[in-house]
């Protein structure tokens, strides 16, 4: 600690006004304030809450760690299932984890490296402090990628999301769409074969896979063949329990209900994410799912509505994406409406859309666009209340 203090004290003059590295000040500032909360005195109120944006963002990162760690293991687990080794869940833990880590960590490193790199460069050019928002986006992006994603694609998508999705709008706090979802939607539409279908969810050389191994996700199976098909692949352990534990193919961080649930618990107890949004997304999903099942218009023949909550990326999207405070509705009433509509639209895209079975990414992006409109009406009602009071 003293060491850092001396080091910073020694190099700081170079970055300050008149120093030879003056133009890199905000890059230096980001590192310095990461190590040391500066001894700035409060203006306005003389005392301040201990919370700051770094701590808030870091809480979200911590909430994603269970999904990340489980994701690493599961990437390995799915690979070994495919090649027919260590097929029991408990077998080969270290092999599976190491295999997954080798696949997943580079994605994390690339996402953070590219994203933070761009943020530093832009902060230095525009002369403003580096904002902490990307700490979360940089972790979200890997978790919503398939394990087979090429690294250059992660880099490209991250750059696209940070530059056009965030910095073009003015940086953290100003963006309209969720940054991580922009990265995903970019790949989804630019390179659809890397983001959908049956082949992308299991890492490894497909020629080594055992005969009959499909790599399809439970969601994909249920979408094409309904409950019967899902029951038929039960040999691959696609039952309810495996979906809850998360031993199924899927994007890196999305498969485990338990891991995502721990994250949700951290976010709710710490109060960092909105319970209003989480609850209303689930309610909207269940309602739409029930209606579609009863009306018999869903592609998911015979799948009960609650299964939709644990299948696919629904829970992950609800906990980590829909609750993004910048792009979600900002009024309490607005949050209920926003979340509920995500549930409804997500299910419409999932269950009624003939092209692909997953809808949360598009539903959330759609509602991101409409969140300010929802808030507008809530705010207007407050203004009208005030006007009518005066009459």
């Amino acid at each position, binding site marked *: 600690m003293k060491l850092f203090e001396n080091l910073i004290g020694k190099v700081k003059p170079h970055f300050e006004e008149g120093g030879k590295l003056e133009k890199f000040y905000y890059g230096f500032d980001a590192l310095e304030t990461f190590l040391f909360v500066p001894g700035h005195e409060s203006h306005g109120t003389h005392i301040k809450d201990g*919370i700051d944006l770094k701590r808030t963002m870091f809480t979200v990162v911590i909430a994603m760690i269970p999904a990340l760690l489980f994701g690493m293991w599961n990437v390995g687990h799915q690979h070994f299932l495919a090649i027919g080794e260590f097929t029991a869940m408990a077998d080969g833990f270290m092999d599976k984890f190491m295999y997954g880590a080798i696949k997943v960590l580079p994605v994390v490193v690339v996402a953070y490296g590219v994203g933070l790199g761009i943020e530093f460069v832009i902060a230095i050019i525009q002369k403003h402090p580096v904002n902490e928002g990307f700490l979360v986006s940089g972790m979200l992006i890997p978790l919503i990628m398939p394990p087979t994603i090429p690294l250059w694609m992660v880099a490209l998508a991250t750059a696209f999301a940070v530059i056009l999705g965030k910095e073009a709008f003015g940086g953290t706090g100003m963006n309209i769409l969720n940054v991580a979802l922009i990265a995903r939607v970019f790949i989804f539409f630019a390179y659809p074969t890397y983001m959908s279908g049956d082949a992308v969810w299991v890492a490894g050389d497909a020629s080594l896979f055992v005969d009959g191994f499909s790599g399809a996700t439970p969601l994909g199976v249920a979408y094409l063949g309904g409950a019967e098909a899902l029951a038929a692949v039960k040999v691959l352990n696609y039952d309810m329990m495996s979906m809850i534990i998360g031993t199924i193919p899927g994007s890196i961080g999305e498969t485990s209900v338990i891991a995502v649930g721990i994250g949700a618990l951290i976010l709710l107890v710490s109060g960092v994410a909105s319970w209003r949004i989480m609850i209303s997304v689930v309610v909207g999903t269940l309602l739409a799912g029930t209606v579609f099942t009863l009306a018999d218009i869903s592609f998911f023949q015979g799948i009960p509505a609650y299964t939709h909550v644990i299948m696919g990326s629904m829970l992950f999207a609800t906990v980590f994406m829909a609750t993004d405070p910048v792009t979600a509705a900002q*009024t309490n009433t607005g949050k209920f409406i926003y979340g509920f509509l995500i549930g409804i639209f997500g299910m419409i895209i999932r269950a009624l859309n003939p092209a692909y079975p997953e809808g949360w990414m598009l539903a959330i992006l759609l509602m991101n666009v409409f969140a300010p409109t929802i808030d507008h009406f809530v705010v207007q009602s407050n203004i009208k209340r005030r006007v009518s009071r005066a009459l």
Partner: protein
Amino acid sequence: MIKLSRGFDIKLLGKPEQGFLDVGSPQLYALKPADVIGNGPIPKLHKAIGDKVLAGEPVFFDKNNPRIQFASPVSGEVVEVRRGAKRAIDAVVISADNSVEFHNHGALDIASCSREEAVELLLGSGAWTLLRQRPFNSLADPEVTPRDIFVSCFDTAPLAPDHNMLIEGKEAAFQAGLNVLAKLTSGSVHLGVGPGSGEVFTKAEGVKTTAFSGPHPAGNVGVQIHHIAPINKGDVVWTLKPQDVALIGKLFTDGVFDAERTMAVTGDELKRTGYVKTRIGASIKSIVADNLKHESVSCISGNALTGTKIAADGFFGLYDDQLTVLEKGDKAEFLGWLLPSYKRPSMSRTFLSFLRPNTEYHVNTSNHGEERAFVMSQQYEKVVPMDVFPQYLIKSILFSDFEQMEGLGIYEVVEEDLALCEFVCTSKQPIQQILRSGLDLVRLEG
């Protein structure tokens, strides 16, 4: 009883002990034009350096409103006129005599005097400067008859004084003052009382009393107005503090401007806390001298949220009845955002201290982070028990949207009502400063 649930009590060490501190009486007193916000006066001096002045004798008047006189709190001699930027007067400093000699303004029978006579007495004696007007929290306008007058009789701010202590010995004057106030308004005089309010407040006559309970800012007069009779566009109401009501009462019964005010001395950087009987604008030097635990402190006239930072030989503000002394928060903290090196109050549940809500904390004046763009939502709403959307209001000020500011209720709030927003803000936004810029905008253009 109006129960408010939203808000936050900041629990700090250094509450004022019940009882009076034995400190020497201060030598210097100051009148500071900047204590008046909104329509701060442009002072024109009646007295020059070296002039003798009696307690209650006008020292300067407001150039924009020559009827409003600012009177000396003590008898003595004008010793200094401190000037700041553009030679504007920062403070007129008066050195006190050994005993207080009052200027006689002439007593006035409260029951039989007219409103005009009452207003003239208040204006000429300096007591008028204690009346503040909403919207804007500025000096009351003598040309206006307020819709109502509001007095909050309890304080919920950090380390707040107990108003029962402050009013001790002034009970009769308080009631007399309420009778005067009733003359000034076309509506009612409203008292907001809290859970611990004594009978001097709860049994006051000729007023409408409303009981409030809940965390800070339940004791803020602005919050109470919102729940009793909210300020609509065009409404004007006045507010003042209980001790100043008593001051006005004494002015009418005895004919003197007696600026004696009991102040709470608070903060855990002080060896001894408690109450002191002193006068408006007193120097804090004799209170903090030999009373500090450490050298590196911040002295605040007022509470830790809304007070004004003053030097260790500075002066109490015109409206303040509290001194808060806290540790200076000017030290960098290694990884302080991740692993705080000491416990600190927070509304955020990312600190495990939320499990022990009754802990009292040692605090310093650190900002605990740097300013950022708005990211979180609904943080402010949790600490503002009013039907107001603070974040939208603040944003409407930031882009100068008059219609939106009015619609969202800018007339109903002043800095102290949104001070907790600034305290809890994750992005460390200067909420009070932004709000004042909006208030100035609508005041000057509206």
